[in-house]
């Protein structure tokens, strides 16, 4: 039976086809309508969703597709998927309307692919079947490839190719991992199925070595997408070269496909391996946070800076995921949404300046506060959201990711500390990641200081042929940014409903971890004791103190 999700997926597809068929002049208008219309079913979905049981799949619908493979055309969402779909649907119009003045030639191709991309992204989040997920996951590459290639900046072709091949390679290896899980299910249950929920329940029985392999394969695929250090290098390039809408979508949703993949599959399929390798993944995340942050600091290109900042930010997201406790996971999912809003907005802001001055170099831009006060206000606002200022959205999620990491010390779990939960990380991880917060302030304020503040500069590339654009933002641009700003503010001031919405799904994901984590903590505790007996020095008291 058809479900609401079908409407959500098919509607953009339909509009993409419409754009392709309609005359070029109409493309913009159709895309605008096509991006706004899905908001309706989206709201209905949000309204109909049973938030109390957010961990269950809703709006489930499934059609047989390839019976012999047990492959079904299945859709359904839990709360996390639905929220991410909401983010996608929200960013759709932002991208379309944000491109009105930027995209002049061949609007048909641009808006067509943009709208098609929308469908694929919603499909990723809505899929309940591994193959459907994978199809949508991969399919997102193509529209963006075309968008970057046709509408990007000077180095776009290289960027697009790199983006495509890098992520394609990663996801093929991930596919091997996913198929292994399917195969394992077949070994146990005797049937082929790609149903994610079914696989999740059987995958855990895999031997640890197999889990480690699957983890490796899946992480290779999803880490590229996230992107996690050291497989991040495609991102700055792609972001820098992509058109504004592409960057917004890329930062806003596409990167989340990676973290969503980790959330859904890595965490779901291979718990024991995750516990064992969480510290390693966390270390990579932390390196990414600080390393990318420091690189941001020496960028000259504003967009590249924000692009690298995505690497840094997504590090927190992954860190929260491998904290393996409610707070960390919830924070991480919230981070996905928040990062989409604030970084998307930053890219939008940068795009607006680029349209006016045809440069993104900090050497050429400066002191825009005096010539573009409205833009500057928004810029500062979103910078602050991105820095993680409490009261704005970034903070809540960043805080939860860090606290989640902090909590998840095995020693504390073993001691039964009231606030300890989860995994195999601990305060030192949180502390190290915390430096990312400082670094974030460093580079973002450095950028703000150069671009927004300072003495006004008049970039050489500024010409007046863009007469349709005023010096400062026009109404369309203001309203776009306002929508995002309201989102940022709303999620910062009152995140509780969203957090509570996320929690059921997170709890379900974490359900198999309880016992495993206890066992892990006990094992680590044994090791720790053995080590401290060897040394038998009192310096261990900072962790073991109080006994």
């Amino acid at each position: 039976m058809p479900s609401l999700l079908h409407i959500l997926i098919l509607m953009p597809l339909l509009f993409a086809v419409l754009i392709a068929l309609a005359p070029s002049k109409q493309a913009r208008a159709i895309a605008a309508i096509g991006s706004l219309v899905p908001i309706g079913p989206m709201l209905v979905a949000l309204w109909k969703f049973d938030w109390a049981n957010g961990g269950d799949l809703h709006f489930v619908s499934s059609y047989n597709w390839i019976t012999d493979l047990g492959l079904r055309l299945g859709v359904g969402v839990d709360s996390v998927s639905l929220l991410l779909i909401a983010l996608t649907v929200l960013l759709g119009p932002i991208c379309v309307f944000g491109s009105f003045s930027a995209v002049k030639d061949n609007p048909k191709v641009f808006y067509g692919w943009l709208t098609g991309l929308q469908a694929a992204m919603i499909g990723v989040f809505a899929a309940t079947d591994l193959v459907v997920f994978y199809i949508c996951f991969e399919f997102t590459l193509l529209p963006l490839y075309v968008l970057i290639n046709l509408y990007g900046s000077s180095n776009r072709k290289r960027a697009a190719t790199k983006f495509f091949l890098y992520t394609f390679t990663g996801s093929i290896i991930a596919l091997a991992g996913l198929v292994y899980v399917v195969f394992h299910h077949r070994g146990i249950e005797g049937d082929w199925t790609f149903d994610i929920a079914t696989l999740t329940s059987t995958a855990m029985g895999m031997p640890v070595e197999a889990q480690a392999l699957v983890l490796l394969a899946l992480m290779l695929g999803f880490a590229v997408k996230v992107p996690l250090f050291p497989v991040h290098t495609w991102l700055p390039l792609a972001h820098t070269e992509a058109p504004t809408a592409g960057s917004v979508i890329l930062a806003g949703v596409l990167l989340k496909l990676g973290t969503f993949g980790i959330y859904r599959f890595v965490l779901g399929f291979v718990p024991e391996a995750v516990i064992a390798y969480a510290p390693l993944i966390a270390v990579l995340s932390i390196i990414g946070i600080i390393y990318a942050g420091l690189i941001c600091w020496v960028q000259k290109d504003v967009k590249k800076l924000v692009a690298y900042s995505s690497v840094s930010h997504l590090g927190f997201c992954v860190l929260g995921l491998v904290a393996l406790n409610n707070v960390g996971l919830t924070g991480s999912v919230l981070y996905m949404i928040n990062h989409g809003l604030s970084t998307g907005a930053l890219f939008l802001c940068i795009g607006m300046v680029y349209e006016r001055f045809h440069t993104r170099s900090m050497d050429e831009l400066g002191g825009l506060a005096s010539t573009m006060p409205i833009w500057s206000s928004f810029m500062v606002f979103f910078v602050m959201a991105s820095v993680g200022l409490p009261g704005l959205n970034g903070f809540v999620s960043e805080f939860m990711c860090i606290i989640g990491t902090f909590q998840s010390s095995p020693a504390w779990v073993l001691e039964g500390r009231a606030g300890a939960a989860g995994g195999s990380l601990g305060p030192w991880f949180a502390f190290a990641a915390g430096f990312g917060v400082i670094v974030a302030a460093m580079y973002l304020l450095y950028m703000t200081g150069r671009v927004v503040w300072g003495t006004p500069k008049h970039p050489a590339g500024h010409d007046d042929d863009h007469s349709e654009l005023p010096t400062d933002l026009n109404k369309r641009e203001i309203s776009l940014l306002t929508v995002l700003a309201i989102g940022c503010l709303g999620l910062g001031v009152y995140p509780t409903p969203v957090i509570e919405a996320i929690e059921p799904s997170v709890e379900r994901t974490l359900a198999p971890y309880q016992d495993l984590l206890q066992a892990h903590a006990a094992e680590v505790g044994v090791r720790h004791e053995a080590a401290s007996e060897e040394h038998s020095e009192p310096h261990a008291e900072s962790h073991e103190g109080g006994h």
Partner: protein
Amino acid sequence: MSMMPALTTLLAAADGPFIAGGTAPAWVGLMAGLPLLGAALCVVCACLNVKSKAPGYLTVGLLAGGFVTALAAFMGGSDSDSYGVATIFRWIHASIGAGSEASITANIGYYMDGLSMLWMLFVTGLATVIGLYSTEYVEHDKGLGYCRFFFAFNLFVFSMSSLVMADNLLLLFLGWEGVGLCSYLLIGYFYKKPEAVAAAKKAFIMNRIGDLGLLMAIGATFVVFGTIEFRPLFEFIRDGVDANGNAIAHTWVVVVIPLLFTAGAFGKSAQIFLYTWLPDAMEGPTPVSALIHAATMVTAGVYLVARMYPLYAADEAHIALSVIAWSGAITAFWAAAIAFAQYDIKRIMGYSTISQLGYMFAGLGVMTTTGAVFHVLTHAFFKATLFLCCGAVMHGFAGQLDMRKLSGVGSIAGFKITAIAMLIGCLNLAGLAGTAGYFSKDMILAEAFVTPGEVIFLPWAVGLLMLLTAFMTAYYTFRVFFRVFVGPVKYEAGDDHHGDAEEEHAAEDAHGHGHDDHGFHPHAPRFAMNAAIALLAIGSIAAIPLYFINAEDHGWAGSMVHESTAAFAAPEVHHDDHGEHGEPHAMLSADVVPVSLGAAPEGDGEAAHHGDNLGLGLDPHKAMYVVSGIIGVFGIGLAAFFHGPKGLGGLFIGNRTDTGSPRMDAVARYFGPLPRLAERKFMIDELYDTIIVKPLLVFSHIFHAFDKLVIDGLVDLFGSLPRWLGSLLRPSQDGMLHGYATGMVAGSAVLLLLVVLVALL
């Protein structure tokens, strides 16, 4: 003193901190809400492109409303039952799962007790007054800039209120970062000035370093106590247990967590390693310096430590407190030493703020929360006065702040009020006997000599250091006053682009401005500024009686502190020969227990302290009145001697000339390079730049290159591997039939051989 630990534990159990138990009325939220409304209205004004002073007046009105709310709350709240928690709405709530019932719960909720009440009173009060001053001060920037200023101003008051009234650590953190943001926005108000932008950035980032400590502290607190809400948290601490019921004394909990909080506090309050942002922050408009960087925001660190005091006191080794005491004293001395040799009057005030904050921390460290808090209060008034006066000068002289280029300002028409207020402020800062500043400083100084060495590491040394600093403070304060406000009238206008210049003024001045003395007319403060200055000067005088009311509690501040968590360790030494208060542990006489951690208030003018560390055979509290009084006068005298103008009817003993102070120069020679070094702030900024910023920058560049060359290079290398392989294989396709045939045969042979080798052997 071997029995001390046992006894203090006993005391802690017997009587804990005051924990506000009731429910506060929700309207206390107006203290935060009205400024927030103001901020929103400023945004509206900006959108409507209001070009008048409306945003300023709106702000002042709303802030006054906030002050009235604070007063109302104070009146209602003086009855301690009505102190309590007012929950507005649930902000963040995340259960930690794992079968645990603990959850990260952070409400937008207000925790009202003496401490927050006291803070709110002076925050809202000062904000109102300084807001009034600002309406005139930034008038040259009417329009968007004006809106921006008052938006940030309002937002600041909102954040500060949230910080102070928060009922949980996370809301506190919101305020904490919020004031940081506003500080950033306001320091960078003159955004066209690179120094201002750099200073703003620096302030934000250095604060963030401390914030990391605070964040970690919140995390640790949550892990240990399972909550970040104050009430349950303090109940645990009062009982000396963590959430599992295990004792926290003697564990890392009471060492590490307080130290982490301290790191946060040091960042915000510009202590020890993290002070360098505050002098630079003087690039901001002067009202901002007065409100944020002198009176309120920078005291947030003191507030935080005072708020979390039970946790500090729960450590019987008092490691964190020792750290605080020593850091405070050292900072106080260090900043005073720098202030000694500065010429920019605003910067001198900046350094003096750091120095005074050092006092406050030292006070917290030597366990007189009352003294520290009282000093916060008095300092807020007199330092705000001083800043506003500096601002008036700056405003009047086109941003001139160099004391070498200003003289006799007090004699210029229109600057009378400024001069008088300046004098009052300086006297307070110098700690002249009888001023509010004198009393508050004494409380801290005296306590340093009273606190036994078992509690704090070498407390008397802390005291001596602070005494020395007091002397230096008196000197450098009056150095400013004598050079700028008295003596022959002589001035150079500042650089218009520097600081608080006015376009209006520049337009008037057809001759141009800058260093053209003849064409320059000082621009005396008008009503709003004068009124604000006067109000604050009066405020700093009015603080004196506060010391005497509720004398049994060490003054009004003490009585407020006693109804707060900071009471946990308030007045340290209990004297059972003082009959008028019947505290629960009154029987613990001073002979037996030299220090008590219980809330045993102590009046001033008590009988002899046993901790006569000064060796004067006096009660330190009394002795200190004398000692510090003398020191203050001596410092002022010295300043007069070196910097006072010549003559003037024999009133002044100085010999300052137009070109400088010959006496001073003569003395300076004895100190070799030291004065030069002090003038250059001991090169600490340069040091940080060299050992931290530059290396980090180098690292970043290396990382950037590494990312491009190595990581991306590796990726490209992997990408080019197939190509390389292809180029290797390509010659095999040479187009020759025979080559192909040979390839096929040889290939098959190799394949078969391989199979034979692998499978059959």
